[in-house]
């Protein structure tokens, strides 16, 4: 609502709230700016996945769509493998959080432990996802044999790419701090990376829920969206 109030001001008047000197100036502080930028990144990525999901729901209403769960021969009727992968990503997220608290409290050991185990768990998650692809292939669930399969491969691939992008940024942050020998400046950027990790965990949970849904659930969701 503040935005609407701002839009209502009359900038040509020199009296009242809009004084001669700034009211909302906070300076181009890099951490604050990075937080805003991250928020926009999260919005953009959310839009991407949102649109994928919308197309998924639309596509699911065509007769050739066979959900990956719900029947005994479907791979995710028993989603235990996915739970393992989820656990890996959750551990990575938690480790990132540990790293942040370490950096905040100035405990270098804790930070290093947090970041390195986060990287390990994240890489393990990607490997586990790749292994899952192999497993599906060996069971005959190829990418082009059904749109549900196509979506599974595509969405996990896009999600994985975002994780790898995160790893690149994280590496960059860590090396810059190491290079400058300024561990105290790690807190803020690491916090941003952690937020990104949590966000991707959230995205993964949504994808997980969607991709392992039974046909009835998918149809109900699609009906809610008007397809």
């Amino acid at each position, binding site marked *: 609502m503040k935005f609407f109030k701002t839009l209502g001001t009359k900038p040509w008047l*020199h009296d009242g709230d809009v004084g001669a000197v700034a009211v909302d100036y906070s300076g181009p502080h890099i951490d604050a700016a990075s937080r805003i930028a991250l928020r926009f990144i999260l919005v953009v990525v959310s839009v991407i996945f949102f649109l994928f999901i919308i197309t998924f729901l639309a596509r699911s209403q065509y007769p050739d769509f066979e959900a990956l769960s719900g029947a005994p021969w479907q791979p995710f009727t028993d989603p235990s493998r996915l739970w393992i992968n989820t656990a890996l990503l959750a551990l990575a997220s938690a480790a990132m959080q540990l790293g942040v608290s370490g950096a905040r409290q100035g405990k270098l050991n804790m930070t290093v432990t947090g970041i390195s185990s986060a990287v390990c768990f994240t890489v393990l998650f990607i490997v586990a996802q790749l292994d899952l692809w192999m497993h599906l292939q060996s069971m005959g669930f190829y990418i082009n044999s059904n749109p549900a399969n196509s979506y599974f491969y595509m969405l996990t691939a896009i999600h994985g790419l975002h994780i790898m992008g995160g790893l690149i940024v994280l590496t960059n942050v860590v090396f810059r701090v190491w290079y400058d020998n300024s561990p105290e400046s790690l807190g803020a950027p690491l916090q941003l990376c952690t937020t990104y990790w949590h966000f991707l965990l959230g995205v993964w949970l949504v994808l997980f829920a969607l991709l392992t849904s039974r046909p009835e659930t998918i149809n109900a969701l699609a009906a809610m969206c008007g397809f």
Partner: protein
Amino acid sequence: MQNVAIADQTVELHDPQTFITKYVWSQDHKVIAIQYSLTAIFVGLVALVLSGLMRLQLGFPDTFDFITPSSYLQFVTMHGMIMVVYLLTALLLGGFGNYMIPLMIGARDMVFPFMNMLSFWVYLLSVIVLMASFFVPGGPTGAGWTLYPPQAILEGTPGSDWGIILMLVSLAIFIVAFTMGGLNYVTTVIQARTHGMTMMRMPLTIWGIFTATILGLLAFPALLVSAIMMLFDKILGTSFFMPALVSLGENLDYSGGSPVLFQHLFWFFGHPEVYIVALPAFGMVSDVLATHARKNIFGYRMMVWAIVGIGGLSFVVWAHHMYVSGMHPAFGFFFATTTLIIAVPTAIKVYNWVLTLYRGNIQLTVPMLFAIGFIFTFTHGGLTGLFLGNVTIDLPLSDTYFVVAHFHMVMGVSPVMVLFAAVYHWYPLFTGRMFNEKLGKAHFWLTFLGAYAVYLPMHYIGLLGVPRRYFAMGTTDFIPESAFTLNASITVSALIVGLSQLIFLYNLFWSLRYGKPAGHNPWGATSLEWQTPDVPPHHGNWGKELPVVYRWAYDYGVPGVEQDFIPQNHPVTDAEHTAGEPEGSKA
């Protein structure tokens, strides 16, 4: 010049030392802006030549041996895609956005200069990938700029092997570049405004660019998603958009996909894209008009609301491009209504531009000529949009030359008129020199009158029912012979307009060397970019101290003050206070 010392820096500015860091790997927003602009102008010229070739074929069919039905479609596609995405989006946001945002809001640079630099180089990569498609076997894609599946990836379309893949990959790369740039623009506007620069004191240029960037950040993902899914269909054989079909006699392995789903995604991007181009143009033209009419922009608040409102509405009108696409016809009611609602804020903008001229003190400089030319062409193009947006009238007119004429008027000629106005207006700032006025005026008259001679008659060819994207019309029962003569005359006008752009390019480079030195603020403008200590502004823009802003960007002709303009960084004086507020503003 009122400046106060502010400890504003948490990021140090490293002044570049070598030629490479200064002009190639530069992190200075002004250099990046010029890099963006030159690249965009280069691809734009390629697209201009393509349009010339298309016009030759349309005006004089059965004459040119080197234009074949396949290459014609390739020209159409590349012309459209380059002009909309790689020229207009890149030039307006990457070029003008980059240059203007920090200067107009009183910042030293973008908040993430490195990412800004990266944005340009990734954009350049996308352009190179796009241009590469001219040299691969089969040539660039000829699927039309909308790239509708199934035909975009099937054999009966030119460039369906490599061309379409390169196009989609190039678009994906472009979107990455745009996102990096866009994050910078919005963050800078939100976070790096100087003392006193409240949101409502920003010039409309910044409002236009800011809103357009947000639209871009939200809309380009839809293009990315559709590009990825189409790449999967093409390369991996999935069936997202591909139904069971028989292509050129062969039963293909696709089944069940929905071509209309692609169209929804494409236009969910495609319609906001229109405003991604239009809103910065709206903003810039407002500033040019106010400066050269020596009058405050009329109804500033309404103008801001209109920009924000148009931006918001642009996400709920996309299917007006799809009235005859075979989607559920009931959608027509909703989308026709939203589309015509958007006409209201747009009309208000036109009224306010004209009312800015009314009771002004109008200097008919070259930028002003182009700005007024814009009002004329935009009014015309906007009004024909009311035909096409109204679902019933779209039935006879969609996919005819009426559509081509409409969107070229509103999205081609109009933004380009603003771009010329903006280049002439800010040329003294970019280079420190004035352009040659005689050449500028010649350029205006040829472009303005020529463009109208191209597009006004084209509407009538569309009324006749001549379809777009036809290599040749051949013989029909309903098209009179005179329509072919009209087409030839359109081609002649188009070639004249195309060639007259050489005057502009010549002027651009001639004045760089021989133009009169411009000095500070040659137009007597109020906004902040003209108040820099150096012209053109140096790295860091503001010398030692950032400017402080005391007023909005439109204090022209303020009562009680001798000078007819007061720059934004001049404190409020007693004289103007006692002069009292004008009537109406208290309401």
